[in-house]
């Protein structure tokens, strides 16, 4: 994504464009120069002299449904941890009082429907995932936050993982020293007899990434309702 933000006489001028994600390694660049953007999409007028700008990363505003590129099955009585990454959004805040100009998605994911039928369900974003299990293989990209998701299959049958819905609006965002972004861990258990999944969100105060490095909390969840987390997670196995 590209953002150009200019500060004119009592106004902020914003130009933004989103890119299509490819396999090239992503990097973030920032430059400050004199003058205003050549093209402007939006103008935000104000009456103060404040020129402070803050770019705050947050997680997406809808759950993200991750689909493995190949069918993945979790065998009976097994437990694995997948590392799922989701694109972050950037909040553009200005002034000392942190007034929000706009919230932009780093990558505009495709819309998708997650539910048992076309009548009942939830609007989500669709995301393809490699469903990586090896942490060393997980690329650390500046525009994606990684969620460690532990899944345990207590049932007698193998569990096909066709779609995994991550309720990212209910997860807080953390940052590591190397710039990588992480969300809270989630553990999901499929019961022996039922298709419902019980969920545990790891709420330890000393947040560490899977490497054991300390993490800093960057953004609070968009929705703080803990019941909502359970509800959203209970739909994990829908569509499997």
């Amino acid at each position, binding site marked *: 994504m590209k953002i150009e933000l200019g500060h004119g006489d009592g106004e902020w001028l914003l130009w933004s464009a989103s890119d299509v994600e490819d396999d090239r390694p992503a990097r973030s660049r920032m430059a400050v120069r004199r003058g205003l953007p050549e093209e402007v999409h939006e103008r935000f007028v104000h009456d103060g002299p404040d020129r402070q700008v803050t770019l705050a990363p947050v997680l997406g505003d809808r759950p993200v449904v991750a689909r493995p590129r190949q069918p993945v099955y979790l065998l009976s009585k097994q437990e694995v941890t997948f590392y799922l990454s989701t694109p972050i959004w950037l909040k553009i805040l200005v002034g000392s009082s942190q007034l929000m100009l706009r919230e932009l998605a780093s990558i505009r994911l*495709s819309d998708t429907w997650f539910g048992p039928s076309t009548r009942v369900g939830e609007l989500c974003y669709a995301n393809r995932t490699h469903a990586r299990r090896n942490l060393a293989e997980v690329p650390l990209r500046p525009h994606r936050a990684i969620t460690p998701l532990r899944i345990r299959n207590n049932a007698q049958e193998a569990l096909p993982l066709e779609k995994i819905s991550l309720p990212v609006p209910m997860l807080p965002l953390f940052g590591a020293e190397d710039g990588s972004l992480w969300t809270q861990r989630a553990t999901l258990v499929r019961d022996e007899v039922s298709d419902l999944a019980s969920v545990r969100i790891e709420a330890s105060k000393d947040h560490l990434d899977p490497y054991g490095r300390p993490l800093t909390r960057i953004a609070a969840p968009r929705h703080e309702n803990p019941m909502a987390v359970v509800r959203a997670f209970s739909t994990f196995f829908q569509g499997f």
Partner: protein
Amino acid sequence: MLEQLQTLISLEGAVRWGRALFLVVLGLLLALMTSRLLQRVMRRRMTAHVAQIVRRLVFYSVLGVFIAAAMSELGFSLTVIMGAAGILTVAIGFASQTTASNLISGLFLIGEHSFEVGDLIRVGDLTGEVLSIDALSVKLKTFDNLFVRIPNETLIKSQVTTLTRYPIRRIDLALGVAYKEDIEHVREILARVADANPLCLDEPAPQFIFTGFGDSSLNIQFSVWVVRENFLELRNAISAEIKKAFDESGIEIPFPHRTLYAGEATRPFPVMLVEDAPSRDQSGPDSNSQDGC
């Protein structure tokens, strides 16, 4: 003495009328206040449609109680009034069958919950947003900003499509490609176009349906799903994107073709490929004579 009694009676009558009037005015005020208060409280908790029904119900109930009290104050017996109202209703019912039919249809419409205030419905050729569902009619606002009143009886009898009932909708695109095209290749291109547009839902997946061998083209139905708010935007965008993708891949969207066939018994039409016709100056006298034939 008699005069004094008459004065007292007339005074008492005036007081009764005054009380009755006061009761009606009080009832009106209370009904208005209660219904408005309820509307404020319910605005966030209920849909506009339910809120409207509850508001009206409360308004008329409160007003009805106070009017009944006022009538009672005037010396009317409620039993007699109810009886009279019953007879009057039957009489009015016979006299105004259409109105009564609309009224009953309105009750069924409200009970059925087929649509609510704010929904987008299609009745026959008419599409519009429901402004209100009243006792006798439903009011719509069409896209070209016209106010349309449809009698409830008509709605009960006709097919009504609620466009905003479910959160997602399907767009069916009817396409035709030339007979020379590879259908599998066309399918891949359409899938790529749908995949590239973020408004097009990933799930339910786009559907590719081969609908038949047409007169001039291979007919295809390509169906994509979209959130209902983005319906128009995607329908316009994806049509343009499909055309562009077909053009880039050299896939022909054919015009209607017509081949003339003269049958087996007759000789085929002589067809000549006409290249650059020789100018008249270069043509010889023979050709001139042939022209004249």
